């Protein structure tokens, strides 16, 4: 997994690619929690390049979301590939995460 940080309009964008699993999710967790500590919001997570996510990756995002909410921040997912979306839906996390098609939609949503 690789993480690339970017800016888009007034949002911070985290572009993920590769595989998010028990090996790579601690790196993701560290990055997410440091953004929470800095109260970065809105934070857009771009899933375009993500080929795989397991329960440790999902747990990491649930934790990140709780952190964001603790200071009233917003966490938004964009460009979630179908296979990853299916795992979110199965986990009933599509109801908890804000998921948009694109960064523009995320910022007007």
């Amino acid at each position, binding site marked *: 997994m690789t993480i690339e940080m970017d800016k888009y309009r007034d949002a911070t964008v985290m572009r993920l690619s590769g*595989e998010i*699993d028990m090996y790579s999710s601690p790196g993701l967790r560290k990055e997410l929690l440091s953004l929470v500590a800095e109260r970065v919001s809105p934070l857009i997570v771009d899933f375009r390049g993500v080929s795989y996510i*397991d*329960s440790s990756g999902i747990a990491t995002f649930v934790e990140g979301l709780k952190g964001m909410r603790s200071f009233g921040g917003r966490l938004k997912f964009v460009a979630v590939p179908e*296979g990853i979306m299916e795992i979110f839906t199965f*986990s009933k996390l599509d109801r908890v995460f804000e998921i948009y098609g694109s960064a523009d939609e995320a910022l007007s949503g």
Partner: protein
Amino acid sequence: MKDSVTITIPSHPGYLSMVRDVTARFGEIHNLSEAVIADLKLGVDEACSNVIKYAYRGATEGEIVITLRIMGKDLEVIIEDEGVRADPACIEGRNLDDVRPGGLGLHLIKRAFHVYEFDEGRRSGNRLRLVRHLR
């Protein structure tokens, strides 16, 4: 085609990707659909992650032995370790409506496999048997 492969990896999360590769290739070789292969990869990965977390308590020098085979109309996956014995009574996924980190792995394993059972007769370590009915 003889239809069994075994892979032995260290109990290190860095090797889970290799187990996923082997699972995916096994599925391709046996002409399973992409959707089924995606489920199997995730299910096997989650079961091996649990071995690292619970049987080996995070220690990375243990061994995990994963066997994939076709038995008639079933795909069977056997996962063996020499770690702490699991108490099947304590293995339970969380209610999915109660959103919190964790407790999802078991659901993902059971999404992929119809059978999830520990071999209780084993002397030490664990032997988990997963079965997916293919048709």
